[in-house]
């Protein structure tokens, strides 16, 4: 078995016991293998973002277990969860979410610096990652000097900084025009070929087409799951 992540009976209820109680996830089971490219599809409100946050150690589920490399993640304290995010998870967001006071290369260095990588080592690897996303000439640019597609490429490079177990991307092409979106999809495919694992929350049919596996979620349950 090559399962890097396993979800068991995940339930997520907001405001439990109150009049505005909201069951978002109702028993989700999921196994993710190394090297997969998964598209997570579903209508808005279906719970796909919540599921992604739970996999990404950002949101503690109401019930159920998340095993990351066989270890029960939510058994950990807040700060230890932050360490798991730092080392095992790479996030890519629809809004890019780079830090505006840092240059492109500094944004990519950040997760490594948090992990205690020395400045020289972090710079070297960050430059390598910029080359991988074909943006090395933009290394000293600040986010407000970059286009949407460039921003998302820097964000992807940042997600790869600490060689994560999985990259979680939330609508990565949602804020891009079709052509730029395609470039990003191609980039992710290329990285997937190199062995990186992707879970992509999306509406984009192009992503769904290129994904190795499609998971559909509706009303808090995985269809056919």
């Amino acid at each position, binding site marked *: 078995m090559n399962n890097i992540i396993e979800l068991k009976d995940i339930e997520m209820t907001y405001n439990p016991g109150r009049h505005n109680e909201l069951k978002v996830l109702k028993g989700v089971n999921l196994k993710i293998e190394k090297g997969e490219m998964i598209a997570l599809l579903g209508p808005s409100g279906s719970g796909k973002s919540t599921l992604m946050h739970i996999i990404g150690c950002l949101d503690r589920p109401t019930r159920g277990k998340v095993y990351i490399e066989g270890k029960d993640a939510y058994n950990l304290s807040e700060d230890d969860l932050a360490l798991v995010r730092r*080392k095992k998870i790479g996030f890519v967001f629809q809004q890019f979410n780079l830090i505006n006071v840092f240059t492109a290369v500094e944004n990519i260095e950040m997760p490594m610096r948090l992990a205690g990588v020395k400045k020289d080592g972090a710079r070297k690897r960050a430059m390598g990652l910029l080359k991988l996303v074909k943006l090395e000439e933009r290394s000293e640019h600040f986010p407000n000097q970059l286009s949407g597609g460039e921003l998302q490429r820097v964000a992807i490079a940042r997600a790869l900084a600490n060689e994560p177990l999985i990259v979680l991307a939330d609508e990565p092409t949602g804020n891009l025009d079709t052509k730029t979106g395609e470039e990003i999809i191609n980039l992710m495919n290329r990285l997937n070929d190199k062995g990186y694992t992707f879970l992509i929350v999306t509406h984009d049919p192009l992503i769904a087409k290129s994904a190795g596996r499609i998971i559909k979620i509706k009303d808090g349950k995985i269809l056919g799951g």
Partner: protein
Amino acid sequence: MNDLIDVAVKNIFRQKTRTALTITGILIGIGTVVALGSISEGIYSMITEEMQFLGGTIMVYSKGSSGFMTGFEGSEITEENVEEFEDFSGVKEVVPYVMRIGEIKIGQGPTSMIFGIAPKDIDFFKSRGTELDSGREIEEGDTYQALIGYKYAEENSLEVGDSIELKKNSFEIVGIIEEINSDIDNSIIIPVDTMMNIYNMDNYKSLFIVPEDVTKIDVVAEDLKSSFDDFEFTTSTDIINQMASIVDTIRFFTIGISSIAAVVGGLGVMNTMIMSVLERRREIGIMKAIGATNKYILTQILIESVMISLIGGLIGILIGGLGSYSLRFVSAGLARTEVTINLVVGSLLFAISLGLIGGLYPAWKAAKLDPIEAIRYE
């Protein structure tokens, strides 16, 4: 840690005007603390220097006179009293003196004092660190010879060999005492016999008693008190304690009240940091998502607020120091201000703690931010 400081510098200069204003708030407070604090420190060091001179001695006055160096006219310590004190157990040395205040006015300086001391007792003063600037001591057999204080000599352009007149008697200046920042600087010292003669004094004004064992000074003073009802005995520590409580009051009003200004500056830091955290909600959320711990975020915000207060503190100390110096200058040396190490270190620690306390709440808020909500926040 280096990174945290790097990032902090970037962050605090994002909103230059706001940061500059916040720093100004701190620097006004700390500057006031330093400038006003230097006044009480100056008074304190003036007193301790003066008291150093009296260190290890018991001062004796007759009851009814109003105390040390007041120039009270009634001299009531007789030669017999002096002998009684000399024979008292635990007493090593008795140094009687007479004094007058403000008898002569040459020039415009502060009122001078005239002391009459036996030439053999001059050593008593020398052993308390008083050295001559020029000339010689008064010696056994001198009559119309005088020692004068440094300031007195300077203000009246007097040198060794010149003469001064007291009660129509001419005195030859044989020596000038070095500057010791005490009343001695404005004094004239002449042989006690001559002085008692020309001022028609029968008795001594006051005297110093040196105990055999300085560490038992309080015991000797107590013994003296219970044996002599007509005299008051005050040790130098008594006076220092009295003075210290006065200085403490002055400190309370100078440092204490100016601290209020600094605390207001600290509230400014808190306000700025709360604003800054609100503006950076999203960014803090991102940092948490990519693996920053709550502790990291807390530290980050605290470093920023301490940095602001530290910069304010450092500039404040500089400006307060300049203020203190100009105060001395403007008052022509009357206000003896002193920016002591204690004052500087204390103000700096105060500034740092303002940053820490002011930063604590916003830092805690930032650390507790839910990354999902913060990232969604537009």
